[in-house]
């Protein structure tokens, strides 16, 4: 694990750096893919950017709303660079809503836009895996295997490495099949479906799963739902273009 990159007096948080590079690379690939799909590349780039920024601001404001009196007493706390003071669920919803509104106002075609965003999603999954690898988060379950890593006082599954391999695999599949989509929206559904399938499989090796009733892991249950929806949509959208 390599959480801090020390360059002289400058201490750089590697997980944050990985995510920033992921956003930059993802947006760049989205721009290129938009052009290939004959879309307004700048509009799609802006949509992704608007979604990200709105999500981030929304996550902070939603968190502040929960503890309004604290932030009224110290309004500058809103600008604190602390990831623990974000409400991720609300942030995602707000970011998604902002992107949908932006897309509707600019008359972007939904399925083609999703296809243009597919590489950004795949690249971000790689970046998140790298961030986990550097910070030691999303750690594996205790296991004594020839490839186990010693982390947090225990030999564990290298779950971050599994996650990285899976994310690179999804990115590779997207790369190979692009330009050969049978219908609009296929690339995005494929990327999301493969990522969900990988999560269902790999969550079993995690040591920090959120466990719900009966010992079921929440991420696996959610992953199955996403996978089923993607496969259903693939069939439906394919039927629409098949004579």
């Amino acid at each position, binding site marked *: 694990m390599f*959480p*801090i990159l020390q360059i002289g007096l400058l*201490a750089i948080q590697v997980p944050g750096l990985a995510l920033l590079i992921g956003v930059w690379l993802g947006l760049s690939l989205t721009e290129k893919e938009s052009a290939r799909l004959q879309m307004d590349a700048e509009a799609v780039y802006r949509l992704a950017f608007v979604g990200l920024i709105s999500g981030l601001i929304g996550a902070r404001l939603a*968190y*502040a709303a*929960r*503890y309004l009196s*604290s*932030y009224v*007493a*110290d*309004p*500058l*706390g*809103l600008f*604190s660079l*602390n990831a*623990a*003071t974000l409400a991720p669920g609300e942030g995602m919803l707000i970011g998604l809503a902002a992107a949908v509104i932006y897309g509707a106002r600019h008359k972007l075609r939904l399925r083609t836009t999703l296809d243009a965003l597919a590489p950004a999603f795949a690249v971000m999954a790689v970046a998140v895996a790298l961030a986990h690898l550097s910070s*030691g988060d999303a750690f594996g379950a205790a296991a004594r295997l020839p490839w186990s890593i010693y982390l*947090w*006082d*225990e030999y564990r599954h290298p779950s971050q490495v599994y996650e990285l391999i899976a994310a690179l695999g999804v990115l590779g599949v997207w790369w190979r099949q692009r330009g050969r989509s*049978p219908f609009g929206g296929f690339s995005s559904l494929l990327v999301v479906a493969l990522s969900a*399938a990988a999560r*269902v*499989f790999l*969550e*079993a090796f995690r040591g*920090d*799963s959120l*466990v719900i009733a*009966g*010992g*079921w*892991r929440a991420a*696996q*249950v959610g*992953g*199955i739902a996403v*996978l*089923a929806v993607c*496969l*259903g949509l*693939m*069939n439906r959208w*394919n*039927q629409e273009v*098949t004579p």
Partner: protein
Amino acid sequence: MGWLMEDARRWWALTSMIVLLAAGWTWFSRVPVSVAGAGQIPSPREGFPAPDFTLDTLDGATATLSAFRGQVVIVNLWASWCGPCRAEMPAIQELYVANRQRGLAVLAVNGTFQDSQTDARAFAQKYGLTFPILLDRDGAVSRRYLLRALPSTFFVDRRGIIRSVAVGGPMREAVLQTQVESLLQKPP
């Protein structure tokens, strides 16, 4: 892929098989109820039990983290020469005074191995700190808590589980308040 998608029935069969396989794997890999949430080893990570320690305090007593079980504890690693530590300590003191009756404790662990007891005392007097100042003379606690930057703050819930970690600072008063408030609201 194209062959599968040509026929809707074929596709539904494939979908059903994949979902069933995924559900089967999820069932197979579920966490036994007897194990869920138990048996974790102490580690300075979110979701783990906070590693226990006993240290001398500035006023000659000793303080043990586990003795504060049932209270919300802020473990703050600091040094007198550290600028961000100076900046956030008054907010921690204020927070402590406002919430100690509700069950908040603060253990300010001075990295004495890279500071001096005299400077730590002068610091505590200057800022009027009323919570225990612990002296990490040999750096054992700093190592145990994988100290990467000063200040580092660990928010520990009433059951002794670390719920949030802030590496670096200074933390704003609102950030401190919200982190503590969410833990204080949970029953012991």
